[in-house]
Every structure is written in C-alpha cells, then in structure tokens.
C-alpha cells in the first residue's frame, strides 16, 4: 500500500502530466486557452481573480522553497529552522487564505452569474472540485500542524520524499509517519496533476513571459497553403 501510494502513484502522475500536456499541445492547440469569462462579468472577477492568481503564485513559490530546496541549504546561508518556519507559516497562511478567498469569490461568481454558469462545463466542475479540495487540505494542514499542534517539520519527511522521486530512488517510508492532512494534501495534489493537462489549467504552462522580450509587432509570412486549408497529416507535399 505504501509503495502504491508514494511510489507508483507519483510516477503515474508525472507520466500523465507530461505526456498529457505533450499530447494536448500536439492535438488540441485550439483548445489551449484560459477560456476567460470576463466578458460576461468583471466586477467580481476583478477582485477574485487577482486574489486567487497572485495568492497561488506565492503558494507555488512557497512549495518550491519548501519541497525542492533542502534544509541543509537554508541552514548553510544562516536561516535557522525556526526562522524558516515562521516565515513559511506566516507567508503560506496569508497566501493560502488569499487564494482560498479568491477561489471562493470565483466559485460564487461562477454559480450565481447566469452567463458564467451556462459556460461552465462538467470538466470545469471536476477541476474546481479537485483544485478546491487540494487548496483546502493544504491550508488546513498548514494551519492544523503549525498553529494548533505547534509545528510539524515536513522538511525532514515530505520534502526528501518529494525529491527522492525525481532522483529515481523513491523512499516511500518517509511518508508513513506524516500527519494525515499532509498525506491527503499530497494525494489530492497528485489527482490535480493527473487531470491538469485535460482541463483549462493548461493555460498556466503557456504563461506569456516571452512578451517581456519580444518585439511589439509580429510579422509572419503567409502559410504555405492558402486560405484556411490545412494539409491533412500524412499528405504533406514532397517538394
């Protein structure tokens, strides 16, 4: 069971996440979009969306800091465990609550604004459920473990396990003693990454950072074939 949960499942998730994105990018570039609903409603969106997105970006940075950077490195630059902990918990909790508040506003908007609700697909609903669950579990793990219980050092268990997966020397035993909320959070995150390539979340992978460096006006030569006619696969011209 431990091996299944903490070795097999992560690798399956990575495979689905990577291959899913490659497949989607090759065959569904047209569907690769944010599917923004701002046209329908922008008063609630203007509050909720930045709150959620900036919140989740900080949360992402926090996860990179907590999971990928080993505690040896932070020790080496002179950040003590306690200091790290205080920073992580404060920043994480604030960002987490911002994200959750933003998400709550967005979900409320999605349900109550008629056109937005009509434009919501089943796929979106599933994505919202998994995303909300993951964020809720993550936030409650942080709050429960650190504020109520007085601290849990995941950098000795969860983080090494996370890194061990990418070294291809997975160590599932590290996860056995971890508090249940952290375990559930990790599992729901795995589920989120599994559905990720098949939802609108793909827009994150094409965050337009290239805009900062490219020239303003893009010139492109006309496509080989004229009109909107696309040569079918396998029938390319030889010339």
């Amino acid at each position: 069971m431990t091996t299944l949960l903490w070795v097999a499942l992560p690798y399956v998730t990575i495979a689905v996440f990577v291959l899913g994105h490659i497949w989607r990018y090759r065959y569904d570039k047209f569907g690769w979009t944010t599917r923004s609903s701002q046209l329908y409603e922008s008063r609630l969106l203007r509050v909720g969306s930045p709150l959620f997105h900036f919140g989740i970006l900080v949360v992402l940075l926090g996860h990179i800091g907590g999971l990928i950077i080993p505690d040896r490195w932070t020790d080496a630059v002179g950040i003590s465990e306690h200091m790290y902990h205080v920073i992580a918990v404060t920043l994480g909790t604030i960002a987490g609550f911002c994200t959750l508040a933003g998400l709550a506003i967005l979900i409320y908007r999605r349900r109550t604004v008629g056109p937005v609700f009509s434009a919501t697909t089943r796929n979106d609903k599933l994505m919202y459920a998994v995303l909300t669950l993951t964020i809720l579990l993550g936030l409650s793990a942080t709050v429960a473990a650190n504020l109520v219980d007085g601290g849990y050092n995941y950098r000795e268990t969860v983080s090494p396990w996370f890194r061990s997966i990418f070294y291809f020397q997975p160590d599932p035993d590290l996860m056995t003693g971890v508090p249940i909320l952290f375990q559930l959070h990790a599992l729901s995150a795995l589920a989120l990454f599994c559905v990720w390539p098949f939802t609108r979340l793909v827009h994150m992978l094409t965050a337009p950072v290239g805009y900062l460096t490219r020239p303003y006006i893009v010139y492109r030569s006309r496509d080989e074939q004229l009109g909107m006619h696309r040569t079918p696969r396998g029938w390319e011209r030889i010339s």
Partner: protein
Amino acid sequence: MRVMAQMAMVMNLDKCIGCHTCSVTCKQAWTNRSGVEYVWFNNVETRPGQGYPRRYEDQERWRGGWTLNRRGRLALKGGGRLRKLLTIFANPKLPGIADYYEPWTYDYETLTNAPLQEHTPVARPKSLLSGKDMKISWSANWDDDLGGSTEHGDQDVVLARISDKVKLEFDQTFMFYLPRICEHCLNPSCAASCPSGAIYKRTEDGIVLVDQDRCRGWRMCVSGCPYKKMYFNHRTGKAEKCTFCFPRVEVGIPTVCSETCVGRLRYIGLVLYDADKVLEAASTPDDTGLYEAQREVFLDPNDPRVVAAAEREGIPGDWIEAAQRSPVYALINTYKVALPLHPEYRTMPMVWYIPPLSPVVDVVRDTGHDAESAGNLFAAIDALRIPIEYLAELFTAGDTAPVDAVLHRLAAMRAYMRDLNLGRDPDEAIPARVGMTGEAMYDMYRLLALAKYDERYVIPTAHAEQAHNLEELATDCALNYEGGPGMGGAGSGGGSGPFGEASGGANPIAVENFHMLRQRQTADHPADPADKRHRVNLLNWDGKGAPAGLFPARTKDDGPEGNPPADSGDAGTEPKP
C-alpha cells in the same frame, strides 16, 4: 528603404446609404457561429452616434492605441509589457458584454406548441448567454438613423470634443453613415498588446490575423485596439477579428463586404510603403501632423527607385503592377480625397474614407440655391463649421484644413462635371481653384463615379504555387481538412471536443457555418438542444412515414397512446394530413 505591400481599402462615404448589407453578408460569412453572436467584423454606424461598442472612441476610458510618452517615444496607451502582465488576471480596460449588447434569440417554439388560449402566444426574447428571458435594450445599431438620439445624442464622443465650443448643437451636425472594418494598421496596437504573440501582420499583404492555435485568451488585444475591432469569442475563449477575407483576396476576389456593397463605395488595392519609416511617422509629435506623416510613408509605385527596391524585397512583378493601378493609392495620394479614420490613435490605419459632401449639397439645395455651383458649395463648406469640425475630429485629429480641401475638391468636381454633362464648355477655372487640372478632375470623376469592378478592386493573386489548395477554387473536397468527414473524422461543426466545446481542431469557418445553419434550421431551442443529432430535417422529408425524430419523444404526462385522435390508426408511422 524597406518596401512592403499592404492591402488597403477606401470607402466613399458619399455613397453609403446605410443599408447594412456589408454587415449582414460579412456576418453570414464569418461570424455566423455561437460565441461570436455579438461580433461584427463589419458594422455600419450612424454619425453622430455612439458607435459599436458604445463610446469606443473614448480612449481616456478604454486606453486603446498608442500615445507618446514623456520622452516623446511611442508607447502603448494602455501601459507597457509589465503592466499588461500584472493586470492579466483581470483586464481593467476590457469592455463587458453590456458595452456591446447581450445576444439573443426568440423562443419561437411557443408559437407552435402553446396551448389553445385567448391571446396570441408571444415568442419571448431569450439570452444566448444564459438562456433566460431578457429585455432587449441595445444592439449593434440601436441608434441607427439617429434613433433615440434625443435621449443619448450627447453620448457621442466626437461630438463631445467639439461641443466645448458649441454647446451640443445636435441638429447642426449632419447625419452620415460610417461603415467600419478592421483597419489592418501598419502599426497595430492589438498585435503589440498580445502577450502570446498570436496576432501577426502578414509580410506579403499586411493583413493582420490572429493565430487561433497560439491565442490563449488573455484579452489584451481587445483593450489594445482603439477601434475595438478585436473581439473575444466567449465560446472558444479566443480572439477573432476581421480577416480582410484573406481566402478570397488571395485568389484575387474582393472581400465579402466590398463584393456585396450596394452603393459600390469600396475600393481595394495595394499600397507600397516604407516599413522603416512607420515608427518615425507614428511618433509624429503633433496629432494633426499624423495624416501627412502617414501619407509620406506610402511610396510612389511609379517611381523607378521604388520599383527597384520592391523587386529587391522580393515583391512579385504583378504585385508592383497592381500597386501602380491601385485605386486606393490614387484616392489617397494622387487625388488626396481619402482620409484615415482617427489617425490620432497612431496605429497608422489602412482603411481610409472619402468624407461625405452630399449633406453640404443638401443644405444648399434646401435653401433654394443652385447646389451644383462651385461658388455656392465652396461658401457652404466654409459656413458649415460644426459638421466640418466633426469630420475633422474623425479623420484628421481635429485639423479642419485637410477636410476642407477634400470637400472643396469634391465640390469642384461636381460643378465641373455638370458643365461637361450638359454639353457646355468646361470651366477650367474650377479645377484650378482646387489645384487640379481638368484632366485630373475628369480622371477622379471616373474613379469615383464610373469605375467598374476591376477598377475598384485591383487585387493581385497570392503567389503560392498550389492552385489546387486555394480555398475558393472548388477543385478539392471542402471536407478534406484534418479530422473532417473527408478524412474519416466526425466533422462535428461546433460540437464538443473531449475537453469542452472549444477543444479539438478548429473547423474551417465555411464548414462550421454549413453545420450551424443546418442545425439552426432543425433546432427548436435557443442554444444547443440535447437531441439535435436525432432531429429530422423537414426539407429532406418526403412526406411519407414518420422517421424517428420527426416528433419529440413522448413524455409520461401525454397519457396513454398520446394525443392523436383514436381514428388515426397507427399514428406512430402513418400521420394523416
């Protein structure tokens, strides 16, 4: 000198009768799909009026186009790259659907299935966004022919600018129509605003297009375009815009809006321009200098040095020849009667307009004077300051001198040609008063009044040695696109891909329209009925038998045996008339 070719258009506003045929045929050809119900690549606005979307010209609010920053350099009015990325999660300058209008249809089904009642049943308007009942309060041409202008005439942005001097003398401005398409600018701010780099200007013909595979729906182009000719398809989550009918233009036929124009007021042709001078021209310090600056960017296609430079840039010989015959170049630079729309947005627009003289003529005629006499018309142009200022706000950033000059030239042509048509000796003093020769005036008259199809539309075909694949040449099966029925795919035409309705490859619009039309003709519901695939097309029904789907499925409350009278026998298969 870096010579580039640009496909451009001129519209002669004197001839526009406001029939909206261009809008309707354009919509049938390009935006006849769900998700783009509110999208009008071509629309005709009544001036004075608010335009579409409402008050789009108010750039203090929408912040579209370019502006000069404190150092006098060209910058996006809506903010630079970093600002765009920081506001990407909620674009603060995006027009909402209310600024356009909420698209609707009518619940026609109640007309046929309402129970017997005292009053005639009514087909209620249903929102195409939420499917709910709605109250129609605006549309793409709600203020057509000045409708409702006593209520909201003061909402006209252009009028507001000139009425600082003249307090809303609404009836002193005259009414005319302004058809608008995408300007296919030389310096497109929509492309500059696109974070993904999906919007590009084609090097061959300058047409500005959106790559549907690269667009990620960040919506910055909608804010960036000062003409608000970028539209967001709310179904696919991608931006769409006027394509200058590129599949048609590539094979040498004019755009749908031009082809179907009743007044024959549109001219299409090539303009050669110096790409190296665009930025400098767009950075002209004075707004009123932009019209002249843009004209100087254009190159004279008859100049041997320009021809040599164009050949060096690889512009084909027949394109250079087409540029020499271009009616657009002639109207802009030879006769100088065409003016750009809102040059002050600094995007270097490439759809130009000949301002209307006919309202001036009408005013003169209404006063009982000779409306064909040059002297009377010149005097009227000089007297009618408010309409002229209005035109100047539209076409020359407020500088009335170029508008005056154009109207004088048109008035002179009118007077000069009357003498010719009546068999009198032409008065060469008339063209001389506007700095033209009689011969040039006659040529201009020919181009404005008589020009036939192949003179109005001088469109060289695209050079791709793949004639078989040209969209509008029916030598190939139209369904042979990737995943289409011709390739064994479903060709679901507006149906759902695996990840929601927008996913899967984009169907060619011609194919999608075909499916949409067919589905609409067989549908009873405002939006996608669940059982549409099982419906029967009555046009194909031979009147015999009742194929499955002819009648809606029976529900339980229909009672046993349903409603048909008892003597109808086997009602399920043999309906009696």
